[in-house]
């Protein structure tokens, strides 16, 4: 089996080559325990993410179950009661949800038009060097920790709003301030994802439009944007999801204490009033004294479960839109 094989280059190593060749006379599988062990470790790493999801679902579900099984509150009341006041036994989540929606609304009022506008500028108008400078700066905006944004909302945005609209209209803690700053924080995400979607539209579609005598803005609005629509919508939904899940900005600037949803003192929909969101509530309660076997503790997980389901649905819709309607250009 050992054939002589020598080239001038390998003469010095020929004996080594021949020796190893003789040793490798078999072509059959050999046990490689090292490989198997490594593969096992890698599979474990992959599985860990599944465990995480299962863990989240189990933890949120079981504690929420405990919450609902105490008899103090049932599902119907959870979703319809106008107040969240554990001291008086009222556990209506809708006040928290409506505050979340209010802040999200304000955030999207800022993030969607400005984010999309910035994306269009970067993708269609900006010269290459400007684009190369501006994109990292937007990344910086996206990388600033949210607690810093919370500080900004409380110490800059709120005084600004109070100066513009009057100290009597705008309370010190208000959803508008938190929402607007949240919008600034989310703007880079929407801009970045939208810009990717716009840049992915192939050049020949733009050329076809120009060839027909369209102006630049007509090409952008009537050809490029519709062609990129699924990516842009997905970006919006991701932005909404982030706004819903955001904690520190609303914890610092939106207010402590849930609002009242309906009835005589309802105040959940006042833009310049204070209201506590789902996330703000969780953070406030868990940041204080919390005994582990209280209904307060369990209620946190019920709120967490609602939040988790909410954002999960949003993210699934976003991914569905991206995959299903991924534009076929040719």
């Amino acid at each position, binding site marked *: 089996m050992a054939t002589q094989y020598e080239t001038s280059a390998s003469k010095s190593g020929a004996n080594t080559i021949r020796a190893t060749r003789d040793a490798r006379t078999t072509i059959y599988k050999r046990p490689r325990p090292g*490989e198997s062990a490594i*593969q096992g470790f*890698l*599979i474990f*790493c*992959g599985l*860990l*993410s*599944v465990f*995480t999801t299962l*863990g*989240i679902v189990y*933890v*949120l579900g079981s504690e929420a179950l405990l919450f609902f099984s105490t008899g103090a509150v049932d599902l119907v009341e959870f979703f319809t009661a106008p107040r969240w006041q554990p001291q008086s036994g009222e556990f209506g989540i809708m006040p928290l949800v409506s505050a979340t929606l209010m802040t999200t609304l304000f955030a999207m009022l800022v993030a969607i038009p400005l*984010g999309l*506008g*910035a994306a*269009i*500028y970067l993708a269609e*108008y900006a010269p290459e060097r400007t684009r190369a400078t501006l994109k990292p*700066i937007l990344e*910086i*905006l996206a990388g*600033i*920790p*949210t*607690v*810093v944004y919370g*500080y*900004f909302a409380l110490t*800059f945005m709120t005084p600004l709003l109070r100066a513009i609209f009057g100290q009597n209209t705008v309370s010190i803690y208000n959803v508008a301030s938190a929402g607007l700053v949240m919008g*600034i924080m989310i*703007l*880079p995400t929407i*801009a970045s994802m939208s810009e990717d979607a716009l840049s992915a539209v192939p050049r020949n579609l733009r050329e076809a439009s120009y060839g027909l005598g369209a*102006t630049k*803005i007509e090409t*952008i*609005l009537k050809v490029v944007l519709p062609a990129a629509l699924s990516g842009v919508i997905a970006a919006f939904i*991701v932005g909404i999801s982030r706004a819903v*899940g955001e*904690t*520190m900005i609303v*914890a*610092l600037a939106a207010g402590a204490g849930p609002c009242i949803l309906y009835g005589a003192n309802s105040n959940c929909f006042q833009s310049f009033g204070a209201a506590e969101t789902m*996330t703000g509530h*969780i*953070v406030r309660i*868990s*940041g204080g004294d919390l005994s*582990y076997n209280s209904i307060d503790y369990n209620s946190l*997980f019920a709120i*967490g479960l609602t*939040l*988790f389901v909410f*954002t*999960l649905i*949003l*993210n699934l819709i976003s*991914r569905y839109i991206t995959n299903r309607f991924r534009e076929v250009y040719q």
Partner: protein
Amino acid sequence: MATVIDGEPEIKTFMPDEAAFKRGLAGRKTRGLVWQIFFIASIVIALLALAALFLNVVNSSFGLVASTFEIDPDEVVEGGDLQAASAEQLAAAIVRIRPNPSKVLVRDNLSSVPTNEFTTRPLSDVLSGHTIPPGIESKTINELTPEELGAVLAANLSTDTMLTYVSADIVGEDVLETYPLFDSLFNRGAIEAEVIEEFGGEAENVEVYFRSWLRPSFIVTKQSSDPIATGISTALLGTLWIVTITVLIAFPIGVGAAIYLEEYSVSKNPWAERFARVIETNIRNLAGVPSIIYGLLGLAIFVRALSAITSGAFLGLDGNGRTILSASLTMALLVLPVIIINAQEAIRAVPSSIREASYGLGATRWQTIWKQVIPAAMPGILTGTILGMSRAIGETAPLVVIGASTAIFTDPNGPFSSFTALPIQIYQWTARPQPEFRAVAAAAIIVLLVLLLLLNATAIFLRQYFRRQLQG
């Protein structure tokens, strides 16, 4: 459109004539200009917001401060200007006004002998490793004259440290009002007048001075409940401990998962393929879960269920599960999706020709991955890791839920310590209404941002380094 009827071309046109076309075109172009202004304005607003954010923070970190003092600073040092006092002056004041606590200062900050031997060992042992003024090496601490004790303090403690001690513990400074930097620089006169009117002047022990809330001593001073005396070393160490352990856990697992998904899941077995897709979908969903949910997960599992491990009980320590270890484990779960997704992309980008060459030489799968694929994918993997670390440094909500301490005054010294972190402190200080807490929060924010800046700069540098290695 020309249509032929009876051999004669009949020219029928739907399009507007020349004049109408020109009018229409002018309108179309104007619309285009308006939109263009809007698009540019969007970017400008984003940039302005970024600038406002930074300027606001800087504005709050430095500025004039109006304070009252329990003991008139004039009685502490000549001229009453504590900020300008020298180390010797401060040390002398400390020894004079608080003789015994000044020895406690030496014991806490400089002593390297056990507490019960502190008063009996000579200075050469007690102060080993520090500067000992000449002539007193053989004396014990209680044998020192006030001047000698003062010299010991002045030689070893920084002016800032002593100043902080003097301000907080001796003089009893209470901040009445802080003023932003911009006003402090340009409207000093007006501010001073306002202070006198509102709070009083020299007679009421009210003083106005310029204070840099962010100063070198701020970074190394332990936390205190008094904003004048507080520093962020406790929080900074907490953050560093948490981030380090987080990366140690998340990096191998994250890269491992990415390797599995990219290299091992492509097989003829359809179940393996499906399994990998499930994991991938799962990871992308996890990336979108709000961070506070991870906090709840960490609270229930790491802090409570696994408290025997996370509290260090199995090592004989007592305490609860609210430790750095719990925080790190939770953060690791949080940043795993980011690391995995980035590492996946990096690995996918490695050209298959490299793998084929390696396999062609008879290398096993792992050998190929370890020696060829991972090095080639390193820049992208590092990017993902740094992104994850940046998140771990900046995230607040999960840490609050897990139970970062609200009152902690000792620096963490291991994974089983109670912890606080930079963003937690910022949150807690910002939530207090008093202006001095806002100022300290602003200073802490600057430290946090600088930390992130250093981290990302390192990332860029490392990326370039690895890229050059690959091309070299």
